[in-house]
């Protein structure tokens, strides 16, 4: 018991590492704020392109793109980008590598979500909108997207949760986000309390989001019956 208290819940260590862990948490938040919008915009682009493409070749290319980047584990993608590009004499900053990796990966996940949302709308919606004189873009932004987003809200939120959790892989390229600074602190202090504290911070940050997702899912299930 004392061993657990000393090694996992060491309050002296908690106090001394709290400032740098909060910096790491801030980096995690910043990273999320950066990559989620990129993913949303590129995913929406992919979905709109796919649902409106008349050219079968373009659709095939999009399906291949989506399936490839849904199949490659994000950490593998990050390693290929971060350690592969320097072989081309392209040295990109860590943050750019991380954002690029997340955008490639997330455009597919958000893309599939948005596609499901757009396809859930009856066809007459666009036709009706267009026949009132709205342009293609106006029909898309004022008629289709608002309804599609409402239909797939739980999936959008739950995908965003996954992205926040996934920012931990940035520690593999030593970007100082929460997990990375906690691991550094552990190595420095020979005590794993910083990692436990980091885990607690993740829980504090994300449990409310998990609860929100459960509520949204339940509401959707209930509407279906």
């Amino acid at each position, binding site marked *: 018991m004392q061993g*657990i208290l000393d090694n996992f819940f060491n309050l002296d260590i908690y106090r001394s590492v709290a400032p740098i862990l909060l910096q790491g948490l801030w980096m995690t938040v910043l990273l999320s704020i950066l990559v989620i919008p990129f993913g949303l915009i590129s995913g929406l682009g992919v979905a709109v392109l796919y649902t409106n493409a008349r050219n079968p070749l373009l659709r095939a290319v999009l399906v291949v793109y989506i399936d490839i980047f849904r199949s490659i584990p994000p950490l593998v993608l990050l390693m290929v980008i971060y350690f*592969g590009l320097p072989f081309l004499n392209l040295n990109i900053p860590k943050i750019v590598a991380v954002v690029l990796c997340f955008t490639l990966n997330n455009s597919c996940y958000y893309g599939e979500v948005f596609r499901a949302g757009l396809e859930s709308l009856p066809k007459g919606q666009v036709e009706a909108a267009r026949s009132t004189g709205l342009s293609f873009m106006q029909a898309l932004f004022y008629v289709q997207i608002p309804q599609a987003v409402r239909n797939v809200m739980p999936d959008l939120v739950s995908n965003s949760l996954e992205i926040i959790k996934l920012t931990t892989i940035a520690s593999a390229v030593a970007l100082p986000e929460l997990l990375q600074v906690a691991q550094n602190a552990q190595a420095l202090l020979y005590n*794993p309390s910083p990692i436990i504290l980091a885990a607690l911070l993740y829980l504090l940050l994300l449990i409310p989001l998990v609860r929100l997702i459960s509520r949204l899912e339940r509401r959707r299930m209930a509407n279906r019956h």
Partner: protein
Amino acid sequence: MNIQGLIFTFFNPDVIGKYYLFILSGMWVTVKVGVAVVITGLTIGFLLAFMRAAGVRTVNAAIIVFADVLRSLPPLVGIILLFFAFPYIGISMSAFAATWLALSLVLAAFAEEIFWAGLRATPKGLMEAGRSTGMSWMQTMWYVVWPHALKLTVPPLTNRAIATVKGTALGAVVGLAEVLNNAQSATSSAGNATPLMMCAIGSLAIFLPVVLVGRYLERRFR
């Protein structure tokens, strides 16, 4: 850089010849961890949902806490906790065990929630009708309620299982000899990026069929 330079750097035949067995053995480890995670995770998730359906208040509270915590915790944090922090309190495990256990528990938490949502979505009358024919609670659950619930759970469950299994690459961080880990050490000893491309292609070879099966199941059960 010309095309030969690109091939030399990313698809170098000599490097491929030297390391393909090493990469293949990594792929085999990836498959083994992945299969183990799916079996363990889905089994635990199923059992937890079953227990939750029994409706014992304290048990349910514990299951809810488990599910909320494991759904919020990033899988990489779980792996690092098990591998680097638990030895300090006398619990040591291999990189394989840490990766397997962390991912299994994460999948179990999500699977429990999905199974549970599926169960709740079945009409109440199913259980009442089953019981009134003289079947026990267990029999009704097994023969009447679950078959209805399972159909609803297939698409979200496949998606979640695929997402979790791709997390096997996270094992590389604790030195699990899976495909990414082997590719990284091959890249640094060869001084050439070919192993990384082999890893990307190897991952595709493992996960693309899984993603395609998932796509099929999603369409079939919706």
